[in-house]
Structures are given as structure tokens and as C-alpha cells.
């Protein structure tokens, strides 16, 4: 197994399809017989990133690269960007609107979850341009 690449379009504002990309990646990793702990962490991190693109950025693209020792995920959107990343990373901080909160989102735990369950996390963001998040999960 050298490197397997997957790419998914994440539609904006479509909550009925949110979570599809992470579900597909999880299924694929299971088929590959990948490390179960790494699968669990990839599923959590990717789900949160995917949902954030749906809610906050009008959708985007998820690119996943699977290596024998790690999974690398890039979540790319052309949304509004994040003005204060440090603040956004705080537990409980959320700008989710009410209609989204009533669906169970908006705890402000998405980015903290990603941080907790990945081995590396980098956010490149520019207000008015978009956000790209790079995540690495190691298979220990």
C-alpha cells in the first residue's frame, strides 16, 4: 500500500447529506484493514471539519490521502474565513445561527474535537477568501 487518494465534494447548507464524506472514508479505511484507533480519530476529525464547511462556509472539498503510517486530510472552502482562529478554537465558541442550533450543532466543540483527536492541525484562513484545514492522523 503506497498512497490512496480520495476526493469529495461537500455540498453547502445541505444537512441531510452532511457526514457523507466522513462516512465513506471510514468505510474505505475499514475495507483496507486500517488501524481501528486511527479510523476512529479520522472519522471524528473529518466529520467535524465537513460539518463546519456545510454550516459556516457554504460547502467545500475534502481531500484524503491514506499512507501506511498516517492519514492526511485537507478541507478546503471558499467561505467567509475565520477572523480570530484562537477564539474559534476555544471550547464553547460558536457563531452557529439558531436554525442550525436546533439541529444539535453549535456547541462550539467541533474545532476542539479536531485538535484533540488529530496529531497535527493547521488552519490557513483569510477573511473573505476562505479556509483550508490540514489534518494528520498517525496510525500508531
Amino acid at each position, binding site marked *: 500500500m503506497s498512497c490512496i487518494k480520495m476526493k469529495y465534494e461537500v455540498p453547502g447548507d445541505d444537512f441531510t447529506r452532511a457526514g457523507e464524506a466522513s462516512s465513506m472514508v471510514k468505510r474505505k479505511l475499514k475495507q483496507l484493514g486500517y488501524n481501528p484507533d486511527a479510523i476512529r480519530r479520522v472519522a471524528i476529525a473529518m466529520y467535524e471539519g465537513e460539518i463546519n464547511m456545510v454550516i459556516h462556509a457554504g460547502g467545500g472539498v475534502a481531500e484524503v490521502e491514506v499512507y501506511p503510517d498516517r492519514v492526511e486530510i485537507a478541507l478546503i472552502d471558499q467561505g467567509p474565513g475565520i477572523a480570530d482562529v484562537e477564539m474559534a478554537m476555544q471550547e464553547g465558541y460558536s457563531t452557529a445561527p439558531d436554525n442550525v442550533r436546533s439541529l444539535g450543532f453549535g456547541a*462550539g466543540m467541533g474545532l476542539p474535537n479536531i485538535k484533540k483527536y488529530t496529531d497535527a492541525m493547521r488552519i490557513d484562513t483569510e477573511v473573505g477568501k476562505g479556509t483550508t484545514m490540514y489534518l494528520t492522523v498517525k496510525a500508531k
Partner: protein
Amino acid sequence: MTVEECAQKLSLRFLAGEEGAQTEISGGYVGDLLSWVMGRLEEGQAWITVMGNINAIAVATLKDASCIILTDEAPLDEDARRRAELEGVPVLVTDKNSYQTALALGQALL
């Protein structure tokens, strides 16, 4: 205790995903905020909640919850029911609230 045994002991009604009835329940987690549950629920736990939408099914699937128990007769959306059938995630419902359900589950697991 399997999901099916739990359903009998706690008088829960299956709404979807009966094919997962033999899954073992390792414990429980109560919560309605999805990313809170995403971060904390552990594999095999029964998820006690009032969230019966399609995103709840996604969380339960990704986290390998043994089942979802909807409390206070909370409704399961039709698209959520279909997704739960597809994924084989058992979804059950009770007229008891989340506190009563967690208490009963804890006693049943002793």
C-alpha cells in the same frame, strides 16, 4: 446485555435498525449537542438523546454507538429512519425522560 435485551427490560420500541439488535451495549452516554457527543461517546455505548435527525444517525454511525434511545417520545425524522435502516443502527424510543432512561439502563447493566 444486547440491544434487544435492553429493549425488553426498559420497554423500548424499535423504530429502525433492528438488524443491529444483537449488538452488545457497553454503557451509556446522555447528550443532545452533536459535537459534544462526537467528542465523548465511547464505542458500544447506548446514546440517550432527544435528537432524532439524520445528523444524529451520522454521529452514531461514525462513533459506533450500539444504539440510539430517543427519550420523551422524541420523533425520528423520516430521512433519519431510512439512514438508520441503511446503516443498521438500532433506534429505539421510550416515553420516559433521559434521566429515568439512564437510571434504568445503569441498573440493567449491573
